[in-house]
């Protein structure tokens, strides 16, 4: 056989891949520094990370409308990936303001942390911009393996190791399921590209449905949808709190993105299967998450269950495979990434105050000793609950509206029930902070960077809630763009 007919060399268009390349190079510089230097200077490592991420962010912002495919159509850049890249890079930069102080307090400083963070960011960035099953698989592994390692980066903490191990085992299972699903999809379509597979009107529809369901189940484990959620509370509780914040924001965006990319490709022939499967999963997820969060004593675990419940709300939007569904889901995802991250970061700062156990009663009277943290935490909790001036209300209303387009009234009604249940635990914390007497005297000050980034996130939650058009003007055209293709 002639080799030339098998291999065709296409030089990659690196202009499309540039942000990922910068993040990769940043990771490699940090890696080299770790090898060369005896003891890495954390200020240097954070400085290099932020510099690299800022360059990547600037490039994405300046070339927001860049579109194209490269690496033999493996890699796709469009407005969808650009928007998610902007959010993921921004949240990673915010995270870096919190990690060092926390690690210093917990006496678990690792120089590996910085480049594992940048490799996981690289994986997430590739994951949101690919239609290819093989590349999705590799990017998924890159993100997950980084998460397993980062979950365990806490010295002398049994819970952290236990959570990481559970995450590793179930993550391995999810990868196996997803690749098994990919096999069936390939059998059906004869291609690795999701667009070609799902546009094909082939004879063996059952292979397609089986493959898609297995593929979705693989992602469902990663996202933490309810029958597959067992690792999530343990991993979120055991992980160092800034890492939990990272997993609940950037991780959520990354794991949801391929599912959102499948939404416009849903065909008429399996449209009903898609709607029913995802709607049922969504209802189970948000009801279970909210009910179990209600009885938690530990606030970090409670927020982990609230994260499961929010995955349910997002899945309810995903079951509506139409333009309005994509719009609602993307907005919800971005809004949740901010509020989820903010709520966990407040805990990360509070944990530095000495004997802090994250128990609910410790929050009583927090307004007196830490007025700033109490305010920020209240804003994030109200946004998670969905109280009108915050963005949480707007995105929940959007998902509700998209459900009405598909006439999924039972999901919509149960969603209201779920939100009603969630009032119990979010408001209890706010009441404890603002209406009870002080239980614990906390004497410490968050650093300036921490205060600044928390303030920016809290303000953005309120501003996006009052002027939702700021983000809508980006989300609306890109959702229509995804459907045009």
């Amino acid at each position, binding site marked *: 056989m002639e*080799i*030339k007919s098998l*291999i065709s*060399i296409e*030089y990659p268009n690196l202009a499309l891949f540039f942000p990922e390349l910068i993040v990769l190079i940043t990771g*490699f510089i940090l*890696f*080299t520094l*770790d*090898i060369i230097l005896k003891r890495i200077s954390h200020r240097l490592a954070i400085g290099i990370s932020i510099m690299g991420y800022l360059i990547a962010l600037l490039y994405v912002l300046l070339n927001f409308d860049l579109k194209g495919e490269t690496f033999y159509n493996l890699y796709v850049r469009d407005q969808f990936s650009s928007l998610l890249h902007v959010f993921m890079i921004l949240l990673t930069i915010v995270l870096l303001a919190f990690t060092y102080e926390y690690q210093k307090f917990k006496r678990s400083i690792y120089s590996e942390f910085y480049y594992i963070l940048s490799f996981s960011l690289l994986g997430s960035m590739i994951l949101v911009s690919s239609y290819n099953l093989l590349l999705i698989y590799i990017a998924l592994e890159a993100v997950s393996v980084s998460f397993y390692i980062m979950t365990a980066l806490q010295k002398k903490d049994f819970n952290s190791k236990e959570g990481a191990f559970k995450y590793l085992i179930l993550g391995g299972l999810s990868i196996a399921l997803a690749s098994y699903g990919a096999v069936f999809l390939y059998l059906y379509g004869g291609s690795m590209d999701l667009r070609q597979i799902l546009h094909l009107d082939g004879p063996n529809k059952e292979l397609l449905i089986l493959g898609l369901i297995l593929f979705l189940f693989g992602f469902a484990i990663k996202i933490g949808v309810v029958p597959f959620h067992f690792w999530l509370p343990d991993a979120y509780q055991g992980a160092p709190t800034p890492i939990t914040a990272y997993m609940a924001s950037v991780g959520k965006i990354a794991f949801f993105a391929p599912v959102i990319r499948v939404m416009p490709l849903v065909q008429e022939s399996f449209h009903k299967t898609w709607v029913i499967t995802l709607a049922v999963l969504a209802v189970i997820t948000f009801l279970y998450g909210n009910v179990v969060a209600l009885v938690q004593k530990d606030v970090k675990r409670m927020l982990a269950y609230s994260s499961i419940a929010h995955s349910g709300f997002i899945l309810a939007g995903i079951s509506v495979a139409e333009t309005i569904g994509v719009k609602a889901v993307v907005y919800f995802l971005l809004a949740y990434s901010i509020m989820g991250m903010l709520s966990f970061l407040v805990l990360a700062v509070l944990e530095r105050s000495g004997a802090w156990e994250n128990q609910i009663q410790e929050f009583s009277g927090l307004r007196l000793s830490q007025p700033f943290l109490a305010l920020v935490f209240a804003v994030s909790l109200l946004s998670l609950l969905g109280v009108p001036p915050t963005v949480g209300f707007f995105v929940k209303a959007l998902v509700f509206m998209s459900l009405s387009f598909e006439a999924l009234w039972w999901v919509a009604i149960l969603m209201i029930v779920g939100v009603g249940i969630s009032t119990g635990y979010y408001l209890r914390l706010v009441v404890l902070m603002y209406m009870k007497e002080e239980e614990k005297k906390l004497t410490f000050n968050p650093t300036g960077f921490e205060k600044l980034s928390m303030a920016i996130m809290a303000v953005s939650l309120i501003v996006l809630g009052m002027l939702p058009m700021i983000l809508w003007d980006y989300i609306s055209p890109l959702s229509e763009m995804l459907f045009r293709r």
Partner: protein
Amino acid sequence: MDYLGFLAFAFVMLGIALLMVFLNYLLGPKAPSSLKDYPYECGVPLYDKSAQTTFHQGYYLLGLLLLLFDIEAAFLFPWTVVYRYLGIFGFVEMFLFIFILTYGLLYAWRKGILDWQFEEEYID
């Protein structure tokens, strides 16, 4: 239905094998002695009665390093076949690949995985 004979064959095979083992157990002469149950270790007395020691972490890490270079070799062979056709492009790609793997080795070296002179306290 075409494979029913095959399935029956598998069951017969399994049945005969189980029967043989069972007959051996039933009819074979038994003369147990303490020395017969003693594990064989090159004719010397046992180091460890339970033979259930934990391995040093270094073995696992060395296994990982072995995997690293196994994969490198597995990718190098097909590359040599198409080397002339790929030319400078393939050369640069392969250089990057090996460079990244070498970084892995450097990292392992730096973190002391190749250092097998254990301190006394680490050995159980």
